[in-house]
């Protein structure tokens, strides 16, 4: 699919230029690669074109914009491990180095054997080429990890540049009649050589900076929007809930909206669905949208992934009953300890006597008490706080956890 602006993919063989060009123009990658190779053979035009495109096209970053949550929860913006850009790179520089060394060796052997090889030209050329290749590689690496203190990389890049300088100087010092003009030409050549090697890197650095600045501006904008929503909309929703009749539609809608907005703004560390608290909260939202009741869930203790489904199902049944028959505020308290899980569902409704369960509510007992018994737990139904309402208490003993539960930090 043709892309709007040409960019080099993060997953690349050499520099990602062929892939990027193919994606940009819609041509098959194989054809582009072949054409580049052919052009490279034709006097090096392909290599030059490749190098030019490599230096001027931006690399595709990991296309994940910083989430709003990361902006809002200040410390959460931990270094997002950047995907390894060099994941599928062929060792191009090493291959080039090998070719350079082979050429140098071959040229020396040939000159020994009496062939007229312009050693004075070939050796400096190889030194320059090697220096340039190394410098580019180091500078590229330097750019990728410049956040980390990379003095070793700087030293290596400088070393490579020195190699370039040496090579260029070799061209001239090996000439037979040095004079003022040779020296001047040498100096100019050195400056130009270094400039050519460093220029692409500088171009990229400048572009990176611009990108970074733009990203920062976006983040600030987002944070402002979030702060505004927090200050105005959430407050208004809270006020509506406070002033509206408890259990009225207005209060319910305001609460649902508040919950939605809050989860969008603040859902720090997206809870894994396996977490008991998260599952209970999801159930609470579901029930609140259907019944005129508020379901408050408080879950404490470490999250455990090895809890049986039954306990959530039983809790859900109890929450549904409370919302349906009692209404008002339903309080769910879940405590996960290392040896047991306990969930309490309390309401302040008319209450009911489990000993005198009418026919119609037999299913209720089965779905709560029976469920808990099947997974090895117990369920007790008793009057709630202050002998009013109903309190369902689900207890599930846990035998030695499959894996050690992580300690709370």
């Amino acid at each position, binding site marked *: 699919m043709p892309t709007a602006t040409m960019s080099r993919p993060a997953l690349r063989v050499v520099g990602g230029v062929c892939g990027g060009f193919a994606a940009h123009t819609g041509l098959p990658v194989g054809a582009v690669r072949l054409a580049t190779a052919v052009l490279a053979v034709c006097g090096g035009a392909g290599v030059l074109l490749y190098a030019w495109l490599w230096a001027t096209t931006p690399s595709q970053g990991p296309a994940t914009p910083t989430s709003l949550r990361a902006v809002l929860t200040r410390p959460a913006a931990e270094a997002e491990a950047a995907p390894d850009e060099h994941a599928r790179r062929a060792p191009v520089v090493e291959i080039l180095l090998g070719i350079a060394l082979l050429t140098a060796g071959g040229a020396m052997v040939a000159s020994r054997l009496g062939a007229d090889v312009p050693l004075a030209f070939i050796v400096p050329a190889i030194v320059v080429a090697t220096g340039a290749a190394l410098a580019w590689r180091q500078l590229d690496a330097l750019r990728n990890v410049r956040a980390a203190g990379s003095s070793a990389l700087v030293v290596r890049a400088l070393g490579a540049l020195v190699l370039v300088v040496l090579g260029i100087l070799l061209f001239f010092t090996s000439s037979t009649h040095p004079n003022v003009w040779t020296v001047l030409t040498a100096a100019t050549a050195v400056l130009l050589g270094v400039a050519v090697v460093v220029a692409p890197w500088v171009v990229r650095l400048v572009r990176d900076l611009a990108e970074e600045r733009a990203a920062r501006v976006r983040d600030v904008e987002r944070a402002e929007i979030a702060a505004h929503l927090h200050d105005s909309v959430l407050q208004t929703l809270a006020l509506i809930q*406070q002033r509206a009749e408890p259990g009225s539609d207005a209060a319910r809608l305001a609460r649902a909206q508040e919950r939605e907005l809050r989860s969008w703004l603040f859902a720090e560390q997206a809870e894994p669905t396996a977490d008991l608290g998260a599952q209970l909260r999801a159930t609470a939202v579901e029930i609140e949208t259907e019944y005129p009741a508020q379901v408050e869930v408080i879950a404490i203790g470490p999250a455990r992934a090895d809890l049986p489904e039954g306990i959530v199902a039983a809790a859900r049944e109890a929450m549904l009953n409370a919302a349906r028959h009692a209404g008002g505020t339903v*309080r769910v308290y879940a405590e996960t300890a290392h040896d047991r899980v306990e969930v309490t569902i309390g309401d302040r409704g008319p209450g009911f006597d489990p000993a005198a369960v009418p026919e119609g509510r037999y299913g209720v007992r089965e779905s709560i008490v029976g469920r808990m018994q099947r997974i090895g737990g117990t369920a007790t139904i008793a009057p709630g706080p202050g002998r009013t309402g109903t309190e369902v208490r689900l207890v599930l003993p846990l035998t030695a956890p499959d894996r050690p539960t992580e300690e709370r930090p």
Partner: protein
Amino acid sequence: MTDDPTAQPQAAPLTVAIVDDHSIFRAGVRAGLPPRLLVVGEAATVDEAVDLVAATRPRVVLLDVHLPGGAGGGGAEVIARAAPGHTDTRFLALSVSDAADDVVRVIRAGARGYITKSSSEADVAEAIDRVAEGDAVFSPRLAGFVLDAFGAVSGETAQVDTELDRLSAREQEVMRLIARGYAYKEVATDLFISVKTVETHVSKVLRKLQLSNRHELTAWALQRKLL
């Protein structure tokens, strides 16, 4: 609470200041308070709030956690700046959310309790009464957070009463019942103790929450540059 001997006589109404940066919200709270509570002033920023407390010396300050102005410290900054000179003024934090982030900061700054903005008018009035009497106001969620932060879930129990970093067995029982939504009176009935004893336990837990050096609390506070 009028039968409580420590309550103020009817003649002198309980004075309240409302600090919130939303005028609509202030008006709403004001309209919902019973006549025995006298609103002596309103403030919308940290600086206004500090001045208001100094000028009117209210018994209770209803304090929004998120406030503009000052050094950007919100409600906690108001307490830090206004509390030292006015030991008879108590702060009741009001927050749009009851997330631990919002709440623990003001509690550690010295608030005697907190309620969410969606609490009913009756709840707000009751919380003000309680704070005015010097008791702590714990919501179920704050109780849950306390149980979690003090390691009650993993079975840590204080051996001596003076220990700051863990809860005693009784305090854990009280916190568990509050987390389950029990009112103080109901906690007292359930544990066969007096309401006054429940209040004492809750106040002790509040003190621990404010003073404890427990890792969970200090790490949390350090991370947010509160210490």
